[in-house]
Each structure stands twice: as C-alpha cells, then as structure tokens.
C-alpha cells in the first residue's frame, strides 16, 4: 500500500502541476471564446505538439474551465468516432445533450424534459435519419439553444472541440463547417482544433472556400520539453518524495523521452514502473518512506531484514571503514545495528536536503555561462552529479574557469539567487552559508561604493591631466597611472570573485557527493536501468534474432555451443531453417531449401539410421521442415510468392 500511496501522491502532484501549466494558456483561450461574436465561425487552433498522448489531459481540463466559466455546451469530438458526417452529428448531439444534463442536473423538471428530448431524438434518428439529418439535428439543437438561452441571459456559445485535427477526414470536416456556418446566426458555434503538427495543416486540409468561413486564431501551448523539466524539478528535486532515481535510470527515461516520443505521460509511466519495480524487488524498500515512519519501521525490523541490510554493498563499505569492535557489534547485534541505521538514514535525509539546494545553487552559476559546459537544464546537471564526482570532470573545471571571469552585476544577482534558495530550503546547516553569502553581498556593495570613489579619483586625475600641460608633469602622471595599473592586477573585486567561486567550489565538493557513495543508498535509489529498458523499450526483433541465430543463449545445452556464423546441426529445426534462409537472396526455392535442410539434419542422424527405414525418416524430416517453414511464415520472415512456382519471398534482408 505504500506504493499506492506514493503513486497517488505523485500523481496528484503531477496533475495539479499539469493543470497549472495549462491554466494560463486556457485562460487566454477562454477569454477569447467569450469575446468572439462575428459572422464567421470563430475558431481557435491550438498547436499542441506531437506528444498526442498528453493532449487528453489538456482537453479535459480545458473543457472543465470552459464549462465553469463560459458556456455549458461543450462537445469533444475524436476522429475515430466520426468516420462520416452522420456519426459526427450523432456524437455531437449526444454530447451536447449530455452536457446539458450535467449542468442542469439540479433542476429535476429540466432533467426529465431533456432526457425525453434525447430519447425522441435518438428514436427518430434511428428511423429515417438520412433524409432529415441536417434539418432535424439542426432544428433540435437550435431549439434547445433557444430554450436554454432564455435562462442564460447572454447567449452562451456552443463549443465544439476537435481533438485530433490531423486524423479527421477532410470531407467530414468541410461538410460540418459548411453546415454550421449556415446556422451561425441562430447557433453561436465556436470550434477548437487540436493540432499536433503545425497550423499549415488547416490550409492543407481545408480548401479556401471552407477556410474563409472560419475566423482562426492561433494558440501555442508549452513545449513538452518544458513540461519535462518542470516535472523533473517537482518530482526528483524535492525532498517530499523519499523515492529517488539513480543516474542510469534517469538517463534511460530522459532518453526515451527525448529520442522517442516527447510524451510526458510515458515518462510518468516509466517512473511508475520504477516505483513498482523498486518496491517489488528490493526487500529493504520498506524503509523508503518519510524519516519519521522509517525510524519506526527500523525498530520493528526482523532479524532477516537486518541480515539483508548487512548484505548491502554500501553498508559493507561502511562497516569496513569502522573500528574492529564496532564492526563486530554491527555484524552481530541487531539492536546496535538498528541504532546505527537510524543515524545513517537521518544522514541520508540531510544529504538529500543539502544536495538539492546546492544543486540549484550550482545550476544558477552554470546555466548562465557561455556554451553551457555543464548543461543548460538542471536535469543535465543532476545527471552529471549523480554519475560521478562532478568536480573531477573537465566540464566542471572549464565552467569554474568561466565563472572566474564573470562581471560583477551578474555575480551579484547570482549570489542573491543563491541566498534565496538557501533561505527557502529547510536544511539548518545552511545558516552559516547564508551568512557567508550575505557577507559576500555586502562586500560587493561596499566594493561598488569604493568603485565609485575610485572612478571619482580617476576622473579627478584626468582632470588634473588636462589641467597641467607641463610636459614633465604629464610624463610623471602617466608613469604613475601605468604603475598603479600594473599593481592593480588583482583588485579587491577580483580577489573577492575568486573567493566566492572557491567557496561555491567547496560547497559543491561537500554536498554534491554522488549518491552511490552514500551508505544505505540502495534503500531509496532505484538503479537497475536494464529492467526499465527491457519493459518499456523492448526490441522484439532482436530477441527473435538472437533466439534464432544463437539458441545457446536461451537453451543452455552444451551441444548448441558454437562460434558465430556456422550452423550447428544440432540446433532446433527452426534455427537451421532460418540459417539456411539467410543464405538466400530475395526468393527461395522450396525444394532446394528442403534438400539443404535434410542434408543438415541427416548429418546428425545419419550414422544410426538404416536404409530400411529411410523412407520413414524422410517423411519425418519433410514434416519437420514443413513445420519450421510455416513457423517462419508466422513470424513474418517469409511469405508465399506467386512469382515462380514453389518459391517463397524473403521479407527481411541481409544477415538479420
């Protein structure tokens, strides 16, 4: 049940976040729908991006918002429900009626009336829908419009949302637009198109005559990459959730997102899978919860679980670093172990808190550097920190060097941001750091004042310079100036800058130790990326290929062991047939194939088969061949061909 709790918590968080991110965008649209009242059909084109899977949520919340604020009449149409104009009208009617009921459900009489309406409508529509389709649906909707609009004093528009514009058939869409444009005076329609690709699609789908009936305004939604970064920000870089992702897992998830589908939903699915897998496979995951609960649970650990803890590699490392008496106590007495575990868990918790704020701080520094040596996004930085000791990497070196060349105003704003981060974080250890940073800031302010003075001085000296036209004096002052410049090699500001950077460096070294180096990290970190890759991003073809090419991989029989390339004649039938088929071109002659197969198989059975039963054996081999070939056909490697008699065509090419 912990998982479910976690899942729920996580999901709620996500949903609220997604809503939030959409709300701004929705407000724009809703406002706009309010405003529109013209001859043409007002149309909002929402450019949503290719991650089709996430759009559901967007539309759901959009319709909610519209329902609450503007008009109760919303229909959500999907392309798969509307192969023809008839289905579209039916669906539209049904949804509008339903909407009506939803909104009016408090008033009983209305409910009855509407449901009657609905029944009548569907009945008549069943009888002779086709002849009266336009008249009836339109009059029906129009009447409904009128009856209800008398109550809603201002005429609320009927909003029709086309979820997936690209997959609608052109004809249906055109017909619907033309029909509805005829009745736009009586029935104020507003269309919303959800577009996955680009707004050009409207013009390629609709001819000019139709698109001129629309008054289109374009809306752009947030890109899914931004969603991802906010989600990572909220999910991974908080201490609210005790469960953490290891570096490799995170990398896999991000890769799937960036290189495959851009779908936030799939990312969440992967995250869910991680949670499930972690709590299922790791016996110590019971301790993966808030610190208070974890301490309670530690006390109630059984002996076996204690043994499990002792087996953890990170714990072993810890034990080895202790004194010998302590080692013995840790390895033998459970009660002592529990005490230590509580302390270690606390350490881990504190580590997370510190980690996050220091990470953000570092991100503030690195994200403004030219060329982004450590990455632009905080997730890249996070990965880099998890992967290795970040201060040992070249990128970190170069970014520090770049940081040493920052100018003052940038540095000051960065320091201010860092202070904010530290203040908002709850870790108590940062009081000192905050103080230190504030000190830096005040020093900077002082420096600023000094700089003014200095400027004054230099200005005055220049004035002096202008005053005195004496050659000797001029030479002298110039020399002095030169001298001062040389000695000014390190001004106070520069010194201070070095100090700040070094301080940040030390922070990083103290707090951004990768999680792998922490004791008991196995409890909260999930780090088996292979599981994730297998279950989310499977490659069925590779599995088939290895099974057919190298059956030893699966069937651990010594007889099957062979060096790659050659056919082991003891392999299962289908493997032999497959290997033989690999040697052919585009077409395969069945007879030759059969003969080759029987030669290979006979080589095994040859010695102990006698001539008398050879016919019998032949038949069996023939049967086995047939089975193997039809299996290959089922798997899609070959298909029967009409080009030549008794030939099959290969559907794959090359060696796989």
């Amino acid at each position, binding site marked *: 049940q912990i998982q479910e709790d976690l899942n729920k918590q996580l999901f709620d968080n996500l949903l609220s976040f997604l809503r939030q991110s959409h709300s701004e965008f929705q407000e724009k649209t809703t406002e706009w729908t309010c405003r529109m009242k013209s001859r043409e059909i007002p149309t909002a084109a929402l450019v949503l991006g290719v991650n089709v*899977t996430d759009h559901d949520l967007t539309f759901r919340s959009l319709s909610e918002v519209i329902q609450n604020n503007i008009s109760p009449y919303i229909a959500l149409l999907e392309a798969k429900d509307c192969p023809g104009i008839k289905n579209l009208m039916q669906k539209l009617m049904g949804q509008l009626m339903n909407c009506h009921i939803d909104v009016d459900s408090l008033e009983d009489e209305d409910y009855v009336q509407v449901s009657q309406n609905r029944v009548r409508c569907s009945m008549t529509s069943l009888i002779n829908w086709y002849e009266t389709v336009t008249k009836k649906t339109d009059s029906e909707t129009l009447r409904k419009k009128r009856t209800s609009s008398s109550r809603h004093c201002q005429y609320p528009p009927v909003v029709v949302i086309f979820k*997936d514009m690209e997959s609608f058939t052109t004809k249906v869409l055109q017909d619907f637009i033309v029909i509805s444009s005829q009745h736009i005076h009586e029935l104020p329609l507003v269309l919303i198109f959800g577009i996955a690709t680009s707004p050009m699609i409207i013009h390629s789908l609709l001819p000019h005559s139709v698109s001129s009936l629309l008054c289109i305004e374009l809306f752009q939604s947030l890109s899914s990459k931004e969603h991802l970064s906010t989600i990572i920000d909220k999910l991974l870089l908080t201490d609210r959730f005790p469960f953490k992702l290891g570096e490799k897992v995170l990398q896999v998830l991000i890769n799937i997102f960036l290189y495959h589908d851009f779908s936030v939903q*799939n990312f969440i699915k992967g995250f869910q899978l991680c949670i499930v897998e972690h709590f299922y496979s790791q016996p110590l995951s019971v301790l993966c919860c808030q610190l208070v609960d974890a301490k309670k649970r530690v006390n109630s650990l059984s002996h076996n679980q204690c043994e499990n803890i002792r087996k953890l590699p990170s714990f072993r490392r810890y034990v080895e670093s202790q004194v010998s008496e302590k080692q013995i106590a840790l390895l033998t007495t459970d009660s002592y172990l529990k005490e230590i575990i509580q302390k270690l868990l606390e350490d881990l918790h504190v580590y997370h808190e510190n980690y996050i704020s220091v990470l953000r701080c570092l991100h503030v520094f690195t994200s403004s550097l030219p060329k982004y040596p450590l990455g632009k996004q905080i997730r890249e930085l996070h990965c880099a920190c998890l992967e290795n000791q970040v201060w040992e990497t070249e990128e970190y070196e170069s970014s520090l060097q770049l940081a040493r060349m920052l100018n003052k105003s940038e540095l000051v704003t960065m320091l201010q941001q860092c202070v904010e981060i530290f203040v908002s974080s709850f870790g108590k250890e940062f009081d000192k750091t905050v103080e230190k940073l504030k000190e830096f800031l005040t020093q900077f302010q002082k420096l600023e004042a000094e700089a003014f003075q200095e400027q004054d001085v230099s200005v005055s000296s220049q004035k002096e310079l202008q005053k005195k036209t004496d050659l000797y004096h001029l030479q002298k002052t110039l020399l002095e100036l030169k001298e001062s410049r040389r000695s000014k090699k390190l001004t106070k500001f520069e010194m201070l800058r070095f100090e700040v950077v070094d301080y940040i460096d030390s922070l990083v070294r103290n707090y951004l130790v990768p999680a792998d180096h922490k004791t008991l990290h196995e409890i909260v970190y999930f780090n088996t990326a292979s599981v994730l890759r297998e279950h989310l991003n*499977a490659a069925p073809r590779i599995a088939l290929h290895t099974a057919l090419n190298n059956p030893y991989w699966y069937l651990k029989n010594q007889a099957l062991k062979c060096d790659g390339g050659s056919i082991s004649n003891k392999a299962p039938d289908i493997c032999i047939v497959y290997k033989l088929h690999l040697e052919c071109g585009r077409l*395969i002659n069945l007879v030759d194939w059969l003969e080759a197969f029987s030669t290979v198989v006979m080589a095994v059975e040859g010695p102990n088969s006698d001539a008398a039963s050879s016919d019998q054996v032949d038949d069996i081999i*023939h049967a086995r061949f047939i089975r193997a070939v*039809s299996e290959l056909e*089922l798997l899609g490697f070959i298909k*029967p061909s009409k080009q030549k008699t008794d030939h099959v065509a290969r559907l794959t090419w*090359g060696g796989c």
Partner: protein
Amino acid sequence: LAKNNKENKMSNLVEEYFEAHSSSKVLTSDRTLQKLRKRRLSQQTLHDLLKKAPLAYAAEIKELNQQHESLFSKWMLQLHLGFNIVLYGLGSKRDLLEKFRTSVLQDSVHLVVNGYFPSITVRSILNSITEEVLEHIGTFRSPLDQLEFIIKRFKEDSSLELYVVIHNLDSQMLRGERSQQILAQLSSLPSIHLIASIDHINAPLMWDQAKLSLYNWLWYETTTFSPYVEETSYENSLLVQQSGSLALSSLTHVLHSLTLNARGIFRLLAQYQLENKDNPSYPGLSFQDFYQQCREAFLVNSDLTLRAQLTEFRDHKLIRTKRGADGVEYLLIPVDDSTLTDFLEKEDEDV
C-alpha cells in the same frame, strides 16, 4: 569509434537492402515440388508424423518455462496497477499463457481470445464480453456503440473486473487498424486487464503513439522455443495440401457426378488451358470461342445450355470468369496446371 562503427553498420545494412532488391532477376533453380515426386502431406498426416518426431531439448525448454512462470505473481501485481502485459520472443507462448490462466486467474472472471483462429473478429470478442461477462442480451448497431456500452458499464460498476488473455494479438484478423483501436480502448479501462502475446516481427508497427499509450504495455521477453502447433495449424502453408483451392480428389469427385457432356465441356476447357499454359498473358477462353468449340464437338446445342452448364461449374468453383479489357467474358479453371494434367491423365485412363 563506436559511433563510427555503428554508422558503418547502418550503411552496410542499407546497402544490403538494395543489393537484395536491385536485380529483378532472381537466380534460383527451377526445381519444383512436383518433380520431387513426393505426395503432398495432408494436415492430418503431418500432425501424426510430427508426433513421432521427438521434441529436441525438452529439458532446457522446460527450464526456460519455469523461469517465465516465476514471473506470474509480478505480472498480477503489474496488471493490478494498470499496466498491460505483452509477451514477445521466439516460440509459442500459448502454453505459458494457458498456465498463467489456470494457475493464477482460476478464480477470477477471464476471457481467452484465440487470435490465431482465422474467423475471430473484434465483434465476437465484444459480444462475448457483453453477453457472458455483463450478461446483457441485445444487439448493437456498431462495435463502437458496443464498446461505449461496455465502457459505461465498467465505469459504473467498480466491482467488475475482467482479465483478457489474447493469444497472438498480431494475427491476420486482429491486426487491422480498427480492431486494434477498439482493443486498445478496452484495455485502457482500469478494470480490464489485458495480457497478450505477439509473434510477428513487425507486430509493433500496428501501434501508433495514441494506441500505445492506451495499451500501456509492459514488455516481457518470453522465449520458449516451443513449436507453434495451434498457431500454424490454420496457416495455409505451401507444402501442405490446401483446403482453399481445389484439390485433385475433389475435382474428380465433382466431375464424376456430372453428365457425360458436362464432363466433355470441362475437358475441353482444361485442354485449352493446358495448351496455353506457357503463355503468361493468356486471359482464358472467351465465351464465344468456347461455345463454337463445344458446338463443333456436339457437346451443346444452344447458347443457353452452355450458360446453364457453366453456372453449375461456377457453383462448384470449378471455373472462374473474368472480364477482359475488351468486355468479353473469359473462362479459367482456378487449379494449378500440374493438378490439371494429373486430372486429364486420369480421365484418359478411365475412358
């Protein structure tokens, strides 16, 4: 370096493709099964023969299966958490799923769909859900309506739970766009748990992003190496006698029950077709020519009788008519030439 290697590999792959498809001329020998002088095996004899052949590596295969079976409880957990499970890998996964069903799903409502069965349709799946699980009597106008009804019922009643086991989700009948869409929508219901198996190498091409997210798959590799017995029994293989096209025995049976003249008419057509068998553009015998020839052989006396006779042939699927480019009807016997030759030889023996 690794990247470079990979690129090399990629370009090799591309070249291999074009190499395989470059020359339209294919060099294979001209031998045919006919010349092998080997009778075609019927489904039954094939089955019997295969029974005699021992299954290789039974012990190892059993071990593999045991490995997969240890995952059952995990699957159940994941199914309950809203994932659906798809199995891939070489070998029939039927027995594995069957075992899963009998050992884990015994007490819960479940539905087994044999995708490899050639006459399965989505509608029949939906019907069995509405009729047997929901116990609803009545028909629906379209599968979409039916789906809507099912979704509504499952949403209303949270106590309903259904496990759907689909063998071969990628079979001929279920791989269509619409059926996959419907199945995906079904499986996206939280109270319907789907566990399916796929075999075809291109099976994942069936699903686009939207469907994939509806399915919410977790992939499991379950290579079993067990033979596809049930699955291929419906696959009309080249080497097995095909029930779909006319075999020699059925041909003779039908013709023996006809009149002498009718047999003569068929013979005439068969002979004409065999004479032209080397001509690839041979469209068939036009009706007028055929009528002329039959008249000359005193087989028919009027246009009408020949037409009646041909209708009878057509009912028995002995001939096929095809309209040519010039609008003339051409007659063909939809039997391969070797069978036809055998038939004529046999007829000659009889006479």
